[in-house]
């Protein structure tokens, strides 16, 4: 997936995010899957809000204190973003000012097992509609 180091990607508009105490929660409004990312993962995700590439994210991770041994985890993290279409190809790498993670830890993204309902009972009730 990551052979093209310089291809620019940006978060899809359908992905919404809320910041948690140690990381963030991403919800894909199209697939209805949601994902937890840790603090380093959240810093990487922010890079993709303006558009970034694997090479740019890798270099940024080195600046944030990532040892060489952790760069594979950065590649795997970005692979998940791309494979699950949380990011899409964008025209260019954008400028972004992101506060670095307080300390470097390997980025982790956890896809929650079951997506939210795509079809629900009503505008109030997200349960599966009863068979009628």
């Amino acid at each position, binding site marked *: 997936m990551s052979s093209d180091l310089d291809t620019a990607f940006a978060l899809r508009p*359908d992905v919404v995010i*809320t910041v948690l*105490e140690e990381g963030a929660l991403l*919800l894909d409004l199209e697939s209805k899957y949601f994902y937890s990312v840790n603090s380093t993962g959240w810093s990487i995700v922010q890079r993709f809000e303006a558009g970034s590439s694997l090479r740019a994210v890798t270099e940024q991770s080195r600046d944030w204190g990532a040892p060489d041994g952790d760069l594979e985890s950065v590649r795997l993290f970005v692979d998940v973003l791309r494979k699950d279409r949380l990011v899409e190809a964008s025209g260019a790498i954008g400028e972004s000012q992101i506060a670095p993670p307080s300390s470097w830890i390997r980025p982790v993204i956890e896809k929650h097992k079951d997506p939210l309902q795509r079809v629900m009972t*009503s505008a*109030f009730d*997200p*349960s599966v*509609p*009863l068979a009628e």
Partner: protein
Amino acid sequence: MTALPEAFPCGPLKIELQADSPALRDAIAKTLLLHDVPWSDPHSISVSVRYATTPEEPAVGNYLVCGQMRADTTPTGLRATCESGAHAEYDRERGAWRISLPKPIPEDTEHLTLLIATTGWRQLGWVPLHAGGVLYGEHCALVCAPSGGGKSTLLAGLIRRGAETLGDDKLLIRIDDGGPRARALVHNMNLHPQTRSWFPEVGDLSLLPRYSAWTQKRKVAIRDYWPDAPRSEALPSHLISLQRGDAGTSLTLRPLSFDETLSVLLRQTVFPRDRELARSILDTVAQTARALHGFEAMLPEGAYDDPECLKTLEALFR
């Protein structure tokens, strides 16, 4: 002749309904009137309803897809259609809805009414939560389970032992002063006639009319059975995720991690496909989850045969 608008309270909204006939008025009012908890200073929106003269193109569902209704975002607001041909359009700038209904008036009209209500609530910053609320003093637990998952029976079991309640399945939550606040919308409960076998004071519920063709449950006013139980607002402190356990085991509780608590709450609300709105809902749900002590309650089949089975749950709040 068109009647003058009639006002219906509906949580934090006051819906000014203008109907072309009494039958059209009743079709919308019957859903609005379920929301019987009074709120002060409600926000007005206008709704007009008439009979359809031409069929409407079905909505695609780019905003919301329900079993019997689809809603789309439009340049001026929203439009929604039901399988029956019932149709609604929302003009965001004017804060006004127009509904057109086929003859005879279909049952799925209630989905349009709920869309109108939830849209208005969300615009006021409230997040609809499909959960019950139970209170012990200042402790408030949000009780979560899918439809038919046993929320109402559990709440009835707790209320009759002294708990108070915000209702069994419809709440609104909002973040105020950095923490979640829950408000009641409905002080009716939907109880199955079988409830009588555990809680005899409810009497023979089968004598009451079924409120929907799709369920055996009957709608009862909480105050009629437990006059001191209804409360209108609370600060949530706990979450109970109700699960069905195997027969013959006792009620068991398992603490939930923050991620698990958040996951349960996310499944109790509807996320329309609107980026700004979804982000706002996600923020509210995440901040609410942060304030809660979450527990999974495994409730075995037949648990209510043992009047002491709820003590384990009640002990959480002492």
